[in-house]
């Protein structure tokens, strides 16, 4: 059985589901909040605020960063929970895993699916921010370096969160358990981020993804590159040995 077939069936299972509302609706909602904020306080933000010298595009990112640092891990929590809920809600695990598919390919496919949905949400958000800038008539050209770096750090930082949420969502039959844990940790991101050590915790690192000069961008990089593959590997090890009762 080819891995590709396992992945395409995983994608197929999200057809007609709530997933698409989350992946597109979530970032658009955050973008709408940023739009209202920047629109209403435009003059203040660009002349009097501390970040005024970053220019309109930078100021907009500065306004987004705290909001997104909390909502992105919550979004990943929900994406992972939905992916697994599909299997748990009507006992689909036992059918799926008795088919000629390896547990490794099933676990990897679901991980990849969560990663791709997360990346899609980030892209949707960036496109929405671009549209807001154009709509508000920002005078400066779009700083693709700044936004590109921000996307890159998020993309790496997200891996740890995805691997963590993927595993706990597969572990609990009750879909509320991984959601409570994930949302709890996401809300704590701001506090975790204050500590030197805990700021490397997966759910906290998106706070450090913004490529401003005074921000330690090593958090998302190290956390994502270490926790991502490590938690994925450990989760897979447990999943492969698990009894499906």
């Amino acid at each position, binding site marked *: 059985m080819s891995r590709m077939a396992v992945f395409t069936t995983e994608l197929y299972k999200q057809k007609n589901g709530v997933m698409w509302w989350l992946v597109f609706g979530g970032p658009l909602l955050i973008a709408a909040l940023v739009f209202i904020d920047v629109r209403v306080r435009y003059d203040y933000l660009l002349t009097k605020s501390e970040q005024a010298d970053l220019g309109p595009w930078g100021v907009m990112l500065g306004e987004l960063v705290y909001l997104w640092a909390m909502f992105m891990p919550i979004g990943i929590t929900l994406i992972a929970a939905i992916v697994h809920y599909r299997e748990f809600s009507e006992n689909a695990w036992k059918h799926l895993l008795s088919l000629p598919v390896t547990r490794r390919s099933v676990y990897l496919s679901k991980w990849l699916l969560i990663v791709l949905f997360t990346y899609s949400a980030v892209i949707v958000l960036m496109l929405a921010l671009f549209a807001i800038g154009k709509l508000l008539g920002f005078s400066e050209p779009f700083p693709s370096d700044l936004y590109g770096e921000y996307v890159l750090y998020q993309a790496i930082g997200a891996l740890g969160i995805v691997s963590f949420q993927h595993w706990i969502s597969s572990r609990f039959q009750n879909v509320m358990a991984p959601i409570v844990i994930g949302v709890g940790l996401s809300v704590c991101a701001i506090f975790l981020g204050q500590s030197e050590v805990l700021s490397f915790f997966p759910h906290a690192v998106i706070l450090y993804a913004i490529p401003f000069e005074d921000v330690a961008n090593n958090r998302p990089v190290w956390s994502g590159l270490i926790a991502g593959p490590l938690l994925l590997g450990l989760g897979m090890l447990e999943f492969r040995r698990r*009894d499906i009762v």
Partner: protein
Amino acid sequence: MSSLVIETDNLTKTFKGFTPVDSLSLNVKKGEIYGFLGPNGAGKTTTIRMLLGLIRPTKGEVRIFDKSLAHHRIEIAKKVGSLVESPSYYGHLTGYENLEITRKLLNADRQDIDRTLEIVRLTEWKHKKVKHYSLGMKQRLGIAQALLGSPELLILDEPTNGLDPAGIHEIRDLIVSLPERMDMTVLVSSHILREVELIADRVGIISRGKLLFEGELAKLQERSEVKLKVEVERPDEAARLLFHAGYRARKKEHALYVEADRSLAAEVNRHLVLAGHDVFHISEERKSLEDIFLELTKEADSV
């Protein structure tokens, strides 16, 4: 190649100090319908999950198509269709889409979906979301999933659960036709003897995780002893009399049950009449399969 399709050797599963399956050695032959019988909680589902590789045995081995399941699960799974307990499905997708997922993973022909839908009579509802199906329709969808890709071995755990009498009949007829029509071997579990009695070539009876009997039902019937039921006016006195004459007799609900078959009926009667007892009734009693099944599983329970 061996003619055994499923072979388990001392299969055991222990969960935290409790052993739902204990040293089970099953043998399912090619082309037969094997009834896997046992009361609820006897360990049937745990066994079936081990046969499908969903649960790892604590001890023992499963061999299917003469290959070790632990080492060749993917190869084996390509030729096995299954339905375990409650149906598995994705409620937000249609019946057709559910089958499409299984088909892709089995790498089966697209036409196979229509063929199996036809078999379980769901063609008319194939584009309806499964969450709107009745329980019976969901169960039939589960059977369709099991039949996809024309497996050589079909493992069905309580396949008639939740079906109405007409549905039960239909599934039973379907199962009976499979070995011949599609060259399949079928293992079907149930806690109801009568359901299996009508379709199975051989049965395995399990209780408390242990295999109590394996073989043809007729063989099981032969094991049951025959008794003479005798009704007399003073049964206690009559029992003593028969005991002195060399018979073992037991009183139950005003009647005597004598350990003897019909060839001795006349002699028992003569003993009683000559001793002055009025005999109202003598008949030969053989236990029904249901009784044997109940007794067998109860005995295991009281151990």
